[in-house]
C-alpha cells in the first residue's frame, strides 16, 4: 500500500500546504500564492491518476503499445487556464484594494471597515 499510494499522499500534503496558506495567512498576495499552490497540487493529483506503468505520452507513434490516459491531461489543460484567469483577477482586485485601503493585510482592512461602520 505504501508503494502503491505514496504519490497521492505527497500530493495531498502539498495540497494542504497550499490550503493552509490560503486560510491562515492575512496577506492577500500570500493568499493568492497559496491558492496557486493548492490548485497546482490538484493538477498534479489528476496527472498522477493518468499515468500507466510502462506507458508513454499520448501522442501516437509507431511501435508504441501503451499510452497514458489523455483525458485527465485535457481536463487539467482547461483547469490551468481557469487557474491563471482566477489569479489574474485576484491580483487585479488586490491592486485595487491596496489603492482603496492602503494595505493588503486582512486585519488592517477589516479594522478600517469596522471604523467606517
Amino acid at each position, binding site marked *: 500500500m505504501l508503494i502503491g499510494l505514496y504519490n497521492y499522499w505527497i500530493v495531498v500534503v502539498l495540497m494542504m500546504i497550499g490550503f493552509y496558506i490560503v486560510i491562515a495567512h492575512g496577506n492577500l498576495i500570500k493568499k493568492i500564492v497559496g491558492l496557486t499552490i493548492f490548485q497546482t497540487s490538484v493538477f498534479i493529483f489528476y496527472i498522477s491518476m493518468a499515468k500507466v506503468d510502462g506507458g*508513454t*505520452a499520448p*501522442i501516437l*507513434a509507431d511501435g508504441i503499445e501503451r499510452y497514458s490516459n489523455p483525458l485527465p491531461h485535457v481536463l487539467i489543460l482547461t483547469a490551468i487556464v481557469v487557474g491563471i484567469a482566477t489569479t489574474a483577477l485576484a491580483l487585479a482586485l488586490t491592486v485595487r484594494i491596496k489603492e482603496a485601503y492602503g494595505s493588503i493585510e486582512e486585519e488592517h482592512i477589516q479594522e478600517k471597515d469596522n471604523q467606517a461602520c
Partner: protein
Amino acid sequence: MLIGATLAILVSMVLAIIRGVIGSTLYDRILAVNMFGTKTVLLIALLGFAMGRPEFLDIAIVYALINFITVIGVLRYSDSLAFNQPDEEKEPEES
C-alpha cells in the same frame, strides 16, 4: 549515462533551490531561479531521451524562453521593488 546526468542535474537543482530559499538578497534569488530554469531545460531534454521519446524538446525551448522572460521581468521591476520597501522592515530576508 543519461540517468547519471539526470541525477546530477537533480542534485544541482536542489542546491539551487536551497540558495533560493536562503536568498539573503533579491539578486541571489533571481540567480537561483535563473539557474533552476536552465537546469530544468536540461532535465526535460534528458528525460525525453531517457524515456525514449525525444521529440518533445519543444517544451525545453519554451522553458528557456520563459526563463529569460522571467529574469528580464524581475530585473525590470526590481528598481521599484527595492524602492517599495516599507521602513518598518529592516531585514526582509531569512524566514
